[in-house]
């Protein structure tokens, strides 16, 4: 693969056992190399008992490839993939707290919220919480829209991402449970069609 010196966003997907301390073991692989984790999400996966990390970093492909190998080397990690933003479907969720008075007084605010796909989560006398889901630009956009109207509180979740060309982990896990796993789950597999994704 050609050396890509340009940094870009990569989505690292890690399938792991559910083990105390594993988050630290994975996190220090980045911090040791002074690489910032832009976003990190842990959640269950499609398989019961298997956890899934979604990690976003901004690095060159060469660095990301080495990082994924170091991650996959950890005893409790089953598999680690990396993908560009084009290779995944991804979403982030954001919550915005705004004064209810402001929304009630200014009709334009309600229109702006609707245009940006925001939904009301909680409506109280004193404040209202809206929620949007989407890419970074979309959630960012609403911040700047709401800022002039007194945005009281804002929070955005980590990114969750689904790999476009993955057929899930069930079949692979069955291979891992065998003493001698078959060749298709081992090194050098090509997950994407055409585009080689070089994992261990």
């Amino acid at each position, binding site marked *: 693969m050609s050396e890509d010196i340009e940094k870009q966003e990569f989505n690292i997907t890690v399938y*792991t*056992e559910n083990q*105390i*301390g594993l988050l*630290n*073991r994975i996190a*220090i692989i980045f911090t*040791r190399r002074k690489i910032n984790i832009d976003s990190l999400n842990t959640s269950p996966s499609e398989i019961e008992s298997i956890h899934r990390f979604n990690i976003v970093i901004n690095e060159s492909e060469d660095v990301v*490839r*080495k990082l994924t*190998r*170091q991650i*996959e*080397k950890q*005893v*409790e*990690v*089953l598999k680690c993939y990396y993908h560009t933003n084009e290779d995944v479907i991804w979403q982030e969720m954001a919550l915005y707290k705004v004064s209810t008075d402001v929304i009630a007084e200014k009709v334009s605010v309600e229109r702006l919220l609707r245009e940006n796909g925001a939904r009301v989560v909680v409506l109280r006398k004193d404040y209202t919480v809206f929620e949007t889901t989407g890419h970074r630009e979309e959630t960012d956009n609403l911040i700047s829209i709401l800022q002039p109207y007194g945005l009281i509180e804002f929070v955005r979740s980590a990114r969750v991402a689904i790999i476009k060309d993955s057929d899930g982990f069930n079949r692979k*896990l069955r291979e*891992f*449970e*065998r*003493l001698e*796993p078959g*060749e298709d789950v*081992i*090194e*050098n597999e090509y997950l994407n069609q055409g585009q080689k994704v070089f994992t*261990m």
Partner: protein
Amino acid sequence: METQTIVQEIGEITGESEKAPIVEVSGSVALLEALIVEGVDTIFGYPGGAIMPIYDALFDYKEKLNHILVRHEQGGIHAGQGYARTSGKVGVVFATSGPGATNLVTGLADAQIDSTPLVCITGQVFAHLLGTDAFQETDVINITTPVTKWNYQVTDANEIPEVIAKAFYIAKSGRPGPVLIDITKNAQIQLFNYKGYTPCNHIRSYRPKPIVRMQYIEEAAALINAAKKPFILWGQGVILGSAEQEFKTFVEKSGIPAAWTILGAGAIPTDHPLNVGMLGMHGNYGPNVLTNECDVLIAIGMRFDDRVTGRLDKYAKQAKVIHLDIDPAEIDKNVKSTVPVWGDCKETLPLLTAAIQQKQHTEWLAKFNEYTRQEVEQVIEPELNPTSLEMTMGEVIKQLNEITKGEAVIVTDVGQHQMVACRYAQFNNTRSNVTSGGLGTMGFALPAAIGAKFGAQNRTVVAIIGDGGFQMTCQELGTIMQCGIDVKIIILNNRFLGMVRQWQELFNSRRYSFVDIQSPDFVALAAAYRIPGKVINDRKDLPSALNEMLSNKGSFLLEVMVTKENNVFPMVPQGCSVSEIRLK
């Protein structure tokens, strides 16, 4: 799942009545039973409050488990490393919580970077006290995470058999490494229904060996068969994989000159005709220069450390690189490979040997010999047969070779004496060179030699140590005294922290900043521990002193006063290419 079917099958075969009786034991007893099934015979350790229940149980296991009381936990873990290196087994270390555990950290880092299999057991405060800043409580799991292959905290005795089984399996399989198990005091005391101990042979999330791909073997063989100037670099992977014989067969059939990293020394004998010497910063002249001339570079079980490669962007750029390694993360980490041969070299080397043509590379080998001739003339001869009044480190090693005939285990510390010993010591056998390669831990040698002796009880163990490093762990003389351990100690005393002084001379205009170290009377120090010793200043006393040391029944300390300002050459200065290696 497969495990379920195995359980069902056993149930059907044995029947309910023949099941092993379930007995109630403490977590501590379960731990010691596990060690016995794993074939452990020696434990290096130091007791303390949080590990007392394990030590209490150990009192009844004295006949089966030989516990060596060290003088410092760092000494304990280096002894465990020395034991693992010479025996090929897993080293086992006990330490208490808090300071006991933190004193293991240097050894863990050393074992991690040098792929040494260890299982370290640390005591921990009661589970209900975790996080309360209890006496001698420290977060050992998080402290040791970066320097262990795996670690785990046990808070319930029921976990012990399975966790210890995993610990041994992880420590020794694949690329070996240190494992730390932290056991809270309540789990050590707790009685539970013990159903016996079953060693582990599979963890679903852990694949110790990559599957061998024939496609790569064939591609590698094609490159080797077409090569005009092929060159083999081998590392400790050959030894860790017990693949010395497979490696020798490969080298001999291919007829390719082969050079070693310091941890690979001894995998084939020093005097093997195709062994062209040591790689790296203080390695031999030919192997360094010709790295940048070869057409195919075959790296076997080595990781292209920066001390081996020098400046990476000028390293073997002309060569096609074949990299054999069990750890996929090593492939392309530092040097981009043309053909990655994933796998255990015990399996891949025979496949590769079968696929290559029998050859001799006479002219190419002669080039190495020509560089050797130059190195002998300018470096080796003056070092081994000096005309100076004062002794050199090299002539001590040469004399030692003549007496031990290359049969001894050589344990070295870190610094100039280490480089000299590794360059000039003769190794006839594998598992004979014990040194701190990756981490460069001063103070390693004395405790590691203790462990090395337990790992190779019938062999002569010689620790070669500088005057600086010796003072870092010299309290382990107490361990040698108490346990009557037969370790021969040579201190090469140049009254300097020599390697730093050499760099200050060469690169800092002789500004000798804090390298002028004073030492105690080492012979008197040894005598305080009832260890016989001798100091020599004169070359003519060297053979008889070495003979006296080696023929002495039990340990002996020989201090050799060597020339103060000698430099180790050749040298690849930092930031330079391997082909810019200097002879002076």
